[in-house]
């Protein structure tokens, strides 16, 4: 029995030796596993996005085995009764078949959809973390660009995936996209006809979306993720200020074994959550929406949430159309085209905009606390509040239904709200962060200075860190000293 137990280890060593005998990797590998990564829960958000992407690829591979990305008409003859014999596109019919006739098909389909939502949520929270802690400053501004591109790619592919089943809800979404593209001055018509292969809905769209969704964009995302990670490895991760931490080191845990297992744990947690959601919480039941017909529509009609802010803008933007030299600039151009382009453009440019404003061109490897830069917090909170208000605008019909108010009243309330409330939120954020900064005058970075006294509240926070890092003994020591003694860091420092 013992011989069998030891066998995998022997084989593993043998394989390792064979590989090293050809590629001389031992030194490189040793260096990699000893790499130090700083410890903070918020540094795992990007990793969560990566694992969501892994789940998406895995479940997506399964779905491609059954999905028929074609707009050819055929009769549905699967086991879902109400649609029996209905003439639908092959795409729609095969989606319903995956849901009812493929074993575990509905589970995989729903896990795929939930993982996509998790992917986008993780990217957005990760982006907020990087924004508010100032990690986008030089030299990581270049990786910020890669990250924003990934967000755009993920949003686009999410929408493509949502559109593929050719159901009534997503077909209406595509119709709106075509309306938006048509509104682009000069090139709108040609661009729309080129993409759709003729006027909406066209016959080429489905297969083009399919190829883009399963091959082109995922390949681009994989390449961009690789670049994102290689840059992180090259530049090494940022860390929060703290004792023993400075611009020229990284303090944390090693890749092997701590981060290897921590990552695996996170991956399994993501899988567990997606599996539970996919199994228990219904998402996008296309058999209820029905197949797409351009002369029919569902109500209420909402897209997935990550695109809802554009939908909200379309609803709230006033009916302003004007002519330039006799040519029409239709109303959807501003909310459907200009707003998203401008939003992502500002996101791309933000590191350089802030640099212009602060004049700070130095290289930074220490993160800022959120409260350290009230101006940035105000801008960030304004932007988030603005997008949330637009998102709410995407649900005017639901709000009107549940509040029993006329839609037009809700629309006017939100039209004003989308302009006023974010500014208010930004001002409140500015006030709060300034107060916070003033009340905790000593920056974390300044703490190790001799003789500095900290307020009890800060010490409590610091000491819980100490427990994690140095064990209870040292932390007790810090607690005791905290009241009036010299700075505990002097005692507890490594």
């Amino acid at each position, binding site marked *: 029995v013992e011989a069998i137990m030891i066998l995998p280890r022997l084989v593993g060593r043998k394989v390792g030796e064979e590989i090293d005998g050809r590629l001389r990797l031992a030194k490189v590998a040793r260096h990699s596993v000893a790499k*130090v990564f700083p410890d903070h829960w918020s540094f795992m958000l990007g990793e969560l996005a990566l694992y969501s992407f892994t789940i998406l690829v895995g479940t997506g591979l399964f779905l491609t085995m059954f999905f028929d990305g074609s707009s050819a008409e055929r009769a549905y003859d699967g086991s879902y009764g109400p649609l029996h014999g209905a003439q639908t596109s092959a795409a729609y019919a095969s989606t319903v078949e995956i849901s009812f006739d493929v*074993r*575990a098909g509905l*589970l995989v389909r729903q896990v795929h959809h939930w993982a996509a939502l998790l992917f986008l949520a993780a990217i957005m929270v990760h982006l907020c973390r990087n924004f508010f802690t100032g990690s986008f400053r030089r030299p990581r501004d270049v990786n910020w660009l890669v990250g924003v591109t990934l967000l755009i790619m993920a949003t686009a592919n999410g929408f493509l995936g949502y559109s593929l089943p050719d159901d009534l809800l997503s077909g*209406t979404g595509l*119709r*709106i996209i075509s*309306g938006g593209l*048509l509104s682009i001055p000069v090139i*709108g*018509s040609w661009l729309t*006809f*080129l993409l759709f*292969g*003729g*006027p*909406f809905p066209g*016959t080429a769209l489905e297969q083009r979306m399919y190829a883009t969704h399963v091959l082109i964009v995922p390949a681009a995302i994989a390449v961009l993720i690789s670049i994102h990670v290689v840059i992180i490895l090259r*530049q090494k991760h940022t860390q929060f200020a703290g004792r023993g931490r400075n611009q*020229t*080191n990284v*303090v*944390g*845990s*090693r890749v092997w*074994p*701590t981060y290897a*297992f921590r990552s695996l*744990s996170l991956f*399994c947690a993501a*899988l*567990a959550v997606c*599996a*539970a*959601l*996919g*199994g*228990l919480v219904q998402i996008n039941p296309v058999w209820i929406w029905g197949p797409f*017909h*351009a*002369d029919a*529509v*569902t*109500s209420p009609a909402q897209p997935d949430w990550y695109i809802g802010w554009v939908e909200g803008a*379309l*609803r709230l*933007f*006033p009916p302003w*159309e004007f002519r330039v030299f006799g*040519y*029409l*600039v*239709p*109303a*959807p151009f501003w909310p459907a085209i200009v707003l998203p382009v401008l939003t992502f453009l500002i996101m791309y440019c933000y590191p350089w905009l802030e640099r212009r404003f602060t004049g700070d061109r130095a290289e930074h490897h220490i993160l800022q606390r959120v409260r350290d830069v009230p101006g940035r917090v105000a801008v960030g909170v304004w932007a988030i509040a603005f997008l949330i208000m637009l998102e709410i605008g995407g649900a005017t019909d639901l709000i009107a239904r549940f509040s029993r108010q006329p*839609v037009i009243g809700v629309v006017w309330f939100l039209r004003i709200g989308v302009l006023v409330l974010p500014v208010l939120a930004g001002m409140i954020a500015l006030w709060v962060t300034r107060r916070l900064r003033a009340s905790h005058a000593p920056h974390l970075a300044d703490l190790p200075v001799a003789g500095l006294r900290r307020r009890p509240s800060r010490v409590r926070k610091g000491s819980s860190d100490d427990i*994690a*890092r140095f*064990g209870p003994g040292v932390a007790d020591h810090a607690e005791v000293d905290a009241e009036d003694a010299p700075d505990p860091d002097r005692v507890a420092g*490594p």
Partner: protein
Amino acid sequence: VLGGIAFGVGYVVDASTQVLGIALSVAFAGLTIGFAAWVALLPEGPFVEEREQMTSSAADRAALADDLGQADGGIVSAPLPRRMLTLALTVLGLAALLPVRSLLGTGLKPGRSQRETNWAVDVPVVKEDGTFIRPDELELGAAVTVFPQDRKRGDDEAVLLLRVDPAHLQLPAQRADWTVNGIIGYSKICTHAGCPVGLYAQGAGELLCPCHQSVFDIYRGAEPRYGPAARPLPQLPLGTDDQGRLVARGPLSGPPGPGWWRRS
């Protein structure tokens, strides 16, 4: 392990989605806790690793520039071959753009196809299933989606027929005879972003688009009342032929659907 076994068994017996999901979730949750426990038992850091600044030294940069600039003995940096290469690549790049035109396929091109529909003088009005309509089929308050007998642009040509009390109608003077017994026809495609204007508030005399809540006044030529749409729904002039069937008496009053640059 239990979760994994449960998933395997569940798959074999074709259990419900819920059972499979729970089994899989339990399996991965177990692994999550296992790995987390492993991490908790590991010796704690902190470990310290040195970090270099990102900018190379001036000497390294200069050395690289020298290597690139001189290693070829000046052949690569000579102007003539370099210009020839630039020209060749530019021409090739432009030539490679031409096949983009193929994306358009053999279908309709922008321009006239956006403006024109198959609605014209004496084109019979038919329902989704292709049957003709007589004016007396529609009761007061009825709403039905119709198409021209031959559909060129498929669903963009959809028209919504509404039977209203003629006394309420306040159409522009030149459209006074576009209705038959209070039956009025408007394009069903919203002029904002192109959704079907599928909600009919009969009491208020309004058509409402479910996508962005544009509201059109059916008594006044479907002028937008509020919401994001800026143009009225095009109206279809209606009449009857010698057999009493509903027909169009001309094209729609404008191109249906969302606006574009060259829309007149």
